[in-house]
């Protein structure tokens, strides 16, 4: 039973971390991405621990193996969803930033939003 707890627990914790990350990503803001990043790092730590346990030759019964596989399948889906949310947040923010740049600075000849330029002035004193 101790072996079962050691093997299944990291996957469950990683899933919980991913859900926390997804909750952060409901707001497509920089702070949200930073918060999500912290949870993702924790999820990675749990998965590294799981990989170490499995590599060390932890014995698994058929039932434990089946349950672990199911949890890992769920984890995969949650990871894909978290990735989609990160991409979605980036898409929204990038689009908004482009709009703001265009509103503030207009467009380039290629139709891209222009970036603000730093004004320089040359004075000659003699």
């Amino acid at each position: 039973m101790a072996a079962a707890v050691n093997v299944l627990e990291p996957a469950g914790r990683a899933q919980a971390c991913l859900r926390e990350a997804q909750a952060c990503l409901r707001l497509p803001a920089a702070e949200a991405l930073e918060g999500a990043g912290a949870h993702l790092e924790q999820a990675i730590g749990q998965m590294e621990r799981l990989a170490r346990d499995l590599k060390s030759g932890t014995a698994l019964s058929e039932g434990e193996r089946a349950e672990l596989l199911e949890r890992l399948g769920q984890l995969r889906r949650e990871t894909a969803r978290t990735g989609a949310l990160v991409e979605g947040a980036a898409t929204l923010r990038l689009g908004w930033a482009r709009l703001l740049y265009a509103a503030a600075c207009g467009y380039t000849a290629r139709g891209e939003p222009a970036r603000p330029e730093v004004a320089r002035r040359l004075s000659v004193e003699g």
Partner: protein
Amino acid sequence: MGLFGTLVSSTGALRVFQKALEVAQNNVSNMSTPGFAKQRLLLEAMPFDPGLGLPGGVFSPGVDSYRSEYAEQAVRRRQEDYGLSDQLAAELSRLEPYFDVTGTSGIPGALNRFFQSISAWSVVPNDQVARAGVIEQAVYLAGRVRDTASSLARARAAADQQICNTVDSINYLAGIIRNLNAQLRQDYRAATDPGVDARQHTALEELARYVDYSTVRQADGTLTVLLGGQTPLVIGERQYEIHAEISGASAAICDTDGREITAQASRGRLGGLIQFRNTTLPAFVGDLDRLAASVADRVNGILAGGIDVNGQPGGALFAYDPAQGAAASLRVTTLRPEELAGALAGAPGGNGNVLELAGLVDSPEIDGASFMGYYGALARNVGRALERAREDLKTSEQLLLQARSLRDEISGVSLDEEAIRLVEFQLAYQASARLVMVLSELTEITINLVR
């Protein structure tokens, strides 16, 4: 600048601040109104030059909305994805119960029973009871196949009805937008009415749940709505209704003139329904028909190669009508038990042909899979399609929340912000009100002095 000029300037400022308070108050009152975007009063300084008699002051050129069309578009695009995923998941959920994967009921259970009856017959090839048992299980198998086909037909009918309902909803929402366009054309004040703006955007967001479209705002504030970016739904005060054609093998969406525009409805609930009705479901029906036809043809083929108890060539046990679909029309013929060809031509009274029938249970018959294996793959495909749809639904729901959060951040009403604005305007209003009161008293004193 004279005293009256100052009075005029202060009175004008008071009116502006009064208007600003009304705008802020309206924002707070409508915080929960669907589609409402907070407004702000635009302020501009008037020219001030006492030497030229310009009294200065403040005036308002009008009210501006905080609404971001970028954020609104982002929400609508994700609403379209959500609508598609939601509808697809709902339709596939209806199919799941019809495909048993446990092997104990439905088609797999019936296949098991049929081949078990053949195994029993192989032991006593000339026993009438065993022969009758095979026919009985064949009837049971045909019945389960027809049941599954009927269930898929009911799912198709349900999808057809949903398509009609969805088209009605689209036409209804387009009607709301058309009515708002009419209001905008008839009353110029509607262009700055936040209520009209809120109703417009609410209708647009609701419409995005049903179908993908694009909008063009005209100079008079009216909206042109194009389904799939191509087919007009609303232009000015005119609406162009779409309708569904569901009598054929595929469901079709047609515009007002009867032209087919099905391919343009690729997202939203309508896109999901069309995808399910015209692609996903026919694929499953086709696979089921293939299974039914293969079972019938192979069993009949083996029986035709043997002889019955009277030494006659074997007759067909199963029959079906390809025009109606093999699964929907699969039935057992009027073959009697003694007419089942259990023996090979060269060994009358034997069980050679029965053994060949029994070998079908593990034989790779369809795409390298046995009948049970093929059915299992079909059931797994249904399950996988449903799982994918549910995953897509969860993801699209969260992406929609993301877009709404961005929209609220940009254009939503925040109580904190409005409270601060109210305090700011209240302070400015109080200051201007005091100035007007002082000037009024000074004017009375001066008049009395002149008298």
